[in-house]
């Protein structure tokens, strides 16, 4: 079942390519719907019977490559498919027929999803490198597709960042292979002990740093705002909601997997990601508060929200930290997808890219603004929303381990988020200036964004099953 989650997008992506430019919409949507079903079925299966393993080629690690679906990976798969399908529907309504961005939009999306799904399932460090490249190049392609000079420049910046990131990661893999003769994470867990040679420490550092660069964790965030802020709305949504989380997921996986004995030895190391996360929360929020373009505001908000994810590292001693991290990933994923989608609709309808140009949209585009507001609630971590549950879990963990500073960062971060979210809402509730026009937009655009936002809020009323899923090992 899990392997189909990889083959299916590859299949519809290449078929969509064969169909020709701007074709393959329905093929893709059907494929995505099937993937969503598969992801749910997989989650249900492993909740019932524990983590599942698939030995590719029948060889088994370390000679072959093993795919493993445990709680963490199944949750990420679920999140990815849950976001991808509505966004695909959104994208179909968003792009005009002859938009140059759509010529090969669907194949690119397919490869992107294949890369994501393959990454979540893989337990082989080198195989993960290939999935990272698949993911990275597809993402760069989506940013660049059909764009003008600014978009191309943003894509290039993104490309170099992602290439350096995966380069550092691959060097780490090379060092690990040199030391132990295997790249299977499962085998490595037992091999890497507290007495690991220095080379392994350096390898770990390189891999984690490379992945942080790909996650756009402060201070490696420089490439994200232009790329996410400049791409077409559905692309921004997809990239901000899931793609950056893939490399976060890997950091987490490495941290609690092969490198777990290292992080136990050096207890100060756990504060490094948390420190960067803290800075990301503050810096990203500050930039979002200052941003003049709506999409830049949202992109900087991603920088800030990614910071929260890295706050869990000092807390990983309790089992709840993973759950808090996944809850935050879900909250931010759904909400950010909704927010970019809503922003795309607002910009399309008003023709205004600036926050200042949004006066009156509360009256003209209530559904979209509602979607934006609901997504904002999740980002601020206000109840009832998944973001609130994540915040609650983080604060409680922080208190129980006496890491007050983390609780403080989470709370202040929520307030800063309120500042930039309400900067937009405040503008939207103003009366429309005379003579402003709002072009009608397809209903699909409004309601897909709304659906995603509503999901991010409703998850806050029922997180038990998700937490149960994450707990499966």
């Amino acid at each position, binding site marked *: 079942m899990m392997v189909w989650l990889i083959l299916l997008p590859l299949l519809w992506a290449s078929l969509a390519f064969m169909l020709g430019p701007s074709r393959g919409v329905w093929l893709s949507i059907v494929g995505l719907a099937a993937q969503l079903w598969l992801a749910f079925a997989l989650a249900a299966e492993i909740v019932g019977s524990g983590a599942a393993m698939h030995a590719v080629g029948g060889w088994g690690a370390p000679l072959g490559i093993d795919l493993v679906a445990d709680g963490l990976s199944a949750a990420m798969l679920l999140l990815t498919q849950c976001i991808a399908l509505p966004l695909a529907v959104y994208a179909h309504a968003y792009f005009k027929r002859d938009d140059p961005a759509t010529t090969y939009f669907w194949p690119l999306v397919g490869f992107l999803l294949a890369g994501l799904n393959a990454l979540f399932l893989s337990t082989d460090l080198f195989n993960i490198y290939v999935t990272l490249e698949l993911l990275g190049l597809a993402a760069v392609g989506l940013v660049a597709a059909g764009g003008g*000079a600014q978009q191309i420049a943003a894509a290039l910046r993104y490309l170099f960042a992602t*290439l350096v990131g995966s*380069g550092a990661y691959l060097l780490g893999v090379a*060092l690990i292979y040199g030391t132990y003769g295997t790249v299977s994470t499962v085998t490595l867990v037992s091999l890497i002990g507290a007495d690991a040679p220095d080379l392994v420490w350096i390898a770990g550092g390189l891999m984690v740093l490379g992945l942080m660069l790909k996650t756009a964790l402060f201070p490696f965030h420089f490439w994200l705002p232009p790329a996410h802020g400049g791409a077409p709305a559905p692309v921004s949504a997809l990239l901000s909601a899931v793609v950056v989380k893939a490399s976060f997921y890997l950091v987490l996986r490495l941290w609690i997997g092969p490198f777990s004995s290292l992080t136990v030895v050096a207890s100060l190391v756990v504060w490094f990601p948390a420190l960067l996360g803290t800075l990301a929360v503050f810096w990203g929020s500050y930039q979002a508060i200052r941003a003049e373009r709506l999409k830049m505001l949202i992109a900087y908000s991603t920088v800030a929200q990614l910071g929260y994810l890295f706050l869990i590292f000092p807390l990983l001693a309790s089992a709840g930290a993973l759950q808090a991290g996944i809850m935050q990933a879900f909250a931010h994923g759904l909400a950010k997808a909704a927010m970019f989608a809503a922003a795309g609709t607002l910009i399309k309808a008003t023709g205004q890219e600036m926050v200042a140009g949004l006066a009156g949209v509360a009256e003209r585009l209530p559904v979209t603004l509602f979607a934006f507001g609901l997504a904002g609630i999740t980002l601020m971590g206000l109840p009832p929303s998944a973001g609130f549950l994540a915040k609650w879990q983080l604060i409680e963990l922080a208190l129980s381990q006496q890491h007050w500073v983390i609780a403080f960062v989470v709370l202040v971060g929520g307030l800063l988020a309120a500042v930039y979210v309400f900067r937009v809402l405040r503008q939207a509730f103003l009366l429309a200036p005379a003579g402003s026009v709002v072009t009608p937009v397809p209903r699909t655009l409004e309601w897909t964004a709304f659906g995603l936002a509503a999901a991010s809020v409703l998850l806050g009323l029922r997180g038990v099953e998700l937490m149960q899923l994450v707990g499966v090992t």
Partner: protein
Amino acid sequence: MTGGLLFASVGVILFAMGVAGVLLLGHLLRRILAFNIMGSGTFLVLVALAQRNGIADPVPQAMVLTGIVVAVAATALALALARRLYVLTGKLELSQDDEE
């Protein structure tokens, strides 16, 4: 020092040179060159370190073959973007001011 360790060391140096090049050089074609040198360095480490005892290991060799293809794909992509940027703006550098 064996030949394996020697080439692994070369790989490390190449990687460091390449990364510094990607980060510091302005001209896009040069940055792409630097990326390739970085990649070559990594590949060398992968094979040479694993074979430091002088026994051929087909696994890292296959990985490097995969890596080379991925690298050429990335290079072509980067070049396409760079050339596109040149067509649109007449420049082959990323300006620094739009970074923040």
